């Protein structure tokens, strides 16, 4: 370890422009040796772009990157690794059909015989308490195990700087704790860690320094131990911090949407089967379904939307009408609408115009198609209404869906469903990858729809979102749904354990529950 005070990594004036966006605007900060440095910002703030430049996936349009004081040009990830920069991606760069060992070998630049590599992997795993079977095929591993592969792969190169891109977005609170232990140990050994997140409580718990980005610009570099979650959130979100207006003391109506012993076999090789899903949503209630990705959320949405009808008609009822065997079109006619998490290609056709996309789900309920023929005038009118009611930024109804930004497309999709006045609405990840302004608008529209007496089901991996939005909450794990609990009485530790599939005695966790409501308080 060097005794000189040169920062491990120093960025000065980094700028990166994409067609139409300035992703990074003159960003400068430094990461010290052995520091855990947070890069904080909401989705779209430019964090990922910035680290991609550090890791050599992209190159900056302007600005300098200094490594131990020297200006460098990182031509590609290989060059980055050679310098001692490791990266764990948010969306894992793993190969499903290959084994753990093969995956790690692919991440190594030097050619190492399989046996020697395996020995080194075992050594790293022992050293940091990471458990993995090198000969398992990745497709059979859990999300947490997959992340471990990435970490092991990065650690094998003895990195001097480890970049972690949103590492906890798919982990249970308990897995998060284990990860933090590994990261603290690494930092103690002198490895710098650049930790990207938008979760304030994590950053307060883990990091020494935090650099906050907003809209591509650096807002502040501060000490998260000194700052409050509220102050950091304000820096991160700017003037957009807006709380959800929930009418106080509203009473929930009668039981409306009832799911009773819903079963669905696994779809495809990597799918999760649904087992005896049971819950009831009353009129005006917002029902949240929490869980770590890959525990049956996708299947649940498909089963509820009608994209995967089930054999038992009575498994899903809306106002007493059995819907289980109906397809998506017929369920919509009965008043059940759904919005899947994937916008492009699932909730909307990216190559189609916005009015064509209105026809996709509103053609029967709103008469946008009559006796087998599309009514372009009516469809354009409805698309226009959605655009203005939800302040969607688009060139007009003729714009193709794929040309909209994520937030605007999501607002359009939500608007398209909500303005059809569904009796029940199922949404998955309603604010995934959406900027704070749009997220607040979407949350408000869901609250308003519930206020009008509809039943709403929100499936989300973002626990903060669910806790602030929902009246009731249940956790999905391995295709089974936990008992619903009232959000006002929910215990964060218990939710965490349910997410991890643990039903025994709660063990110690270090979640600062106070921070959970910070953003929306």
């Amino acid at each position, binding site marked *: 370890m060097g005794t000189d005070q040169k920062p491990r990594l120093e960025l000065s004036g980094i700028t990166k422009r994409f*067609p139409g966006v300035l992703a990074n605007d003159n960003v400068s900060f430094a990461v010290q040796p052995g520091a855990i440095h947070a890069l904080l910002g909401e989705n779209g703030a430019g964090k990922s772009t910035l680290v991609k430049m550090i890791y050599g996936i992209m*190159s900056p349009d302007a600005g300098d990157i200094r490594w131990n004081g020297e200006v460098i040009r990182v031509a590609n990830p290989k060059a980055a690794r050679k310098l001692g920069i490791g990266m764990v991606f948010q969306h894992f760069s793993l190969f499903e059909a290959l084994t753990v060992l093969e995956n790690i070998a692919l991440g190594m630049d030097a050619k190492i015989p399989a046996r020697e590599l395996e020995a080194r992997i075992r050594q790293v795993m022992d050293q940091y308490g990471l458990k993995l079977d090198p000969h398992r095929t990745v497709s059979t591993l859990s999300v947490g195990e997959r992340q471990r592969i990435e970490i092991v792969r990065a650690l094998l190169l003895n990195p001097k700087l480890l970049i972690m891109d949103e590492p906890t977005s798919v982990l249970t609170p308990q897995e998060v704790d284990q990860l933090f232990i590994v990261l603290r140990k690494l930092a103690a050994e002198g490895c710098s860690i650049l930790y990207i997140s938008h979760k304030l409580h994590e950053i307060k718990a883990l990091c020494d320094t935090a650099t906050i980005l907003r809209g591509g610009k650096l807002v502040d570099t501060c000490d998260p131990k000194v700052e409050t979650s509220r102050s950091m959130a304000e820096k991160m979100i700017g003037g957009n911090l807006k709380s959800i207006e929930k009418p106080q003391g509203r009473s929930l109506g009668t039981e409306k949407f009832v799911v009773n012993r819903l079963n669905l076999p696994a779809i495809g090789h990597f799918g999760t089967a649904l087992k005896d899903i049971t819950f009831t949503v009353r009129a005006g209630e917002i029902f949240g379904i929490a869980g770590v990705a890959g525990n049956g959320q996708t299947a649940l949405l498909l089963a509820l*939307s009608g994209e995967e009808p089930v054999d038992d008609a009575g498994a899903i009822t809306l106002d007493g009408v059995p819907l289980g065997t109906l397809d998506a079109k017929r369920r919509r006619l009965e008043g059940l609408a759904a919005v*899947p998490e994937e916008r492009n290609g699932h909730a909307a056709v990216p190559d189609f115009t916005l009015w064509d996309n209105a026809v996709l789900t509103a053609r029967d309920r709103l008469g946008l*198609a009559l006796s*087998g023929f599309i009514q372009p005038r009516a469809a354009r009118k409805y698309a226009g209404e959605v655009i203005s009611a939800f302040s969607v930024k688009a060139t007009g109804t003729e714009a*193709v869906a794929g*040309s909209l930004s994520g937030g605007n497309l999501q607002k359009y999709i939500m608007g398209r469903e909500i303005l059809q006045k569904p009796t029940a609405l199922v949404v998955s990840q309603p604010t995934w990858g959406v900027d704070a302004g749009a997220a607040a608008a979407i949350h408000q529209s869901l609250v308003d729809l519930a206020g009008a007496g509809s039943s709403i089901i929100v499936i989300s991996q973002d626990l903060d979102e669910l806790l602030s939005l929902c009246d009731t909450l249940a956790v999905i794990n391995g295709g089974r749904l936990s008992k619903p609990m009232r959000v006002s009485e929910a215990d964060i530790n218990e939710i965490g354990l349910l997410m991890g599939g643990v039903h025994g005695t709660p063990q110690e966790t270090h979640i600062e529950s106070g921070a959970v409501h910070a953003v929306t308080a």
Partner: protein
Amino acid sequence: MQLRLEKRAQPSRTMLYAAPILAVLLTMVVGAILFSVIGYDGIGAVLEIFTRPLTNPLKWQDLGVKAAPLIIIGVGLSIAYRANVWNIGAEGQYVAGALGGTAVALLTMKMQGPWILPAMILFGILAGMALAAIPAFLKTQFDVNEILTTLMLNYAVVQLLYFLLRTVWKDPMGFSFPKTPLFTASQSLPYLWPGTILHWGVPIALLVAVLAWFVMSRSVFGFQVRVVGSAPHAARYGGFSAKRAIWLVMLVSGGLAGLAGVLEAAGPFRQLVPAFPTGYGFTAIIVAFLGRLNPLGVVIAGIVLAISYVGGEVAQTTMGLPSAATGIFQGMLLFFLLAGDVLVRYRVRAVSTRASGETA
């Protein structure tokens, strides 16, 4: 230096229409160079192939007769390809259509009446559909790739044609040549005007294209086909069944290829011979793409490809250019079209790989 593609926010409408024109022009230029290189008069050959059929009024009828089957098959394929269903078995379905119509014709040799020709056409369409139903069934039931099944059936149907012509359908008065008897007047497609070779298949082709355009752009069926092809998950989310769409587009494209086959058999051929399969089913693939998978575009594309056929024949007689030249032109046309297609969705930027990372 490296070529980089930048996605356009909105597909370029200009490029959508410009790409096929560019493709045709590039094909002519490169074709001229290619033929000069191998020792022909390249420019002369290209002019002969692409302009002679247009400047010589005698060839206009030929164009119509050649374009009709290409348009009818191309329209069907354009619908199937919109749904991302890769029916490349139109050649077989076209032959099947002819077989279906001829079966009726051989049974009605001694009969007369205005119902015979419609019956032949009906059976031709049904035969084309029946052949297309096999890959549709295999794809929807067993998830068998339709590219391979439709293609394999082409070879099988041609063998069936040979078998029938060699055995049960052979004309006893045909001097042991493998061919059917000539169709009777009630079995033949009438000419539009006496003294021309333009038959009723030409207006039928135009009618098919206009109808298909209307259905594809305005009906929920057309919408379904487009959604299934563009975003299958969104289709299911919108309540459309992909299986239903596969069945429908296979039957429509098979039926139209069958229609083209029976019209060709009852029109220009008036009998079945081993040389009946002339590759219209394959050329129609190019027609469908060149027409931007739009039925009205297919009409124009059908005429362009018909020009290359007729012009190819002209060049064969006047310049001794081999008939295979047409295949080269068609392949190149499709290459250039596909390359040009990129410009619809992307901007091509030349970037220097070195410079982008350099800073002062």
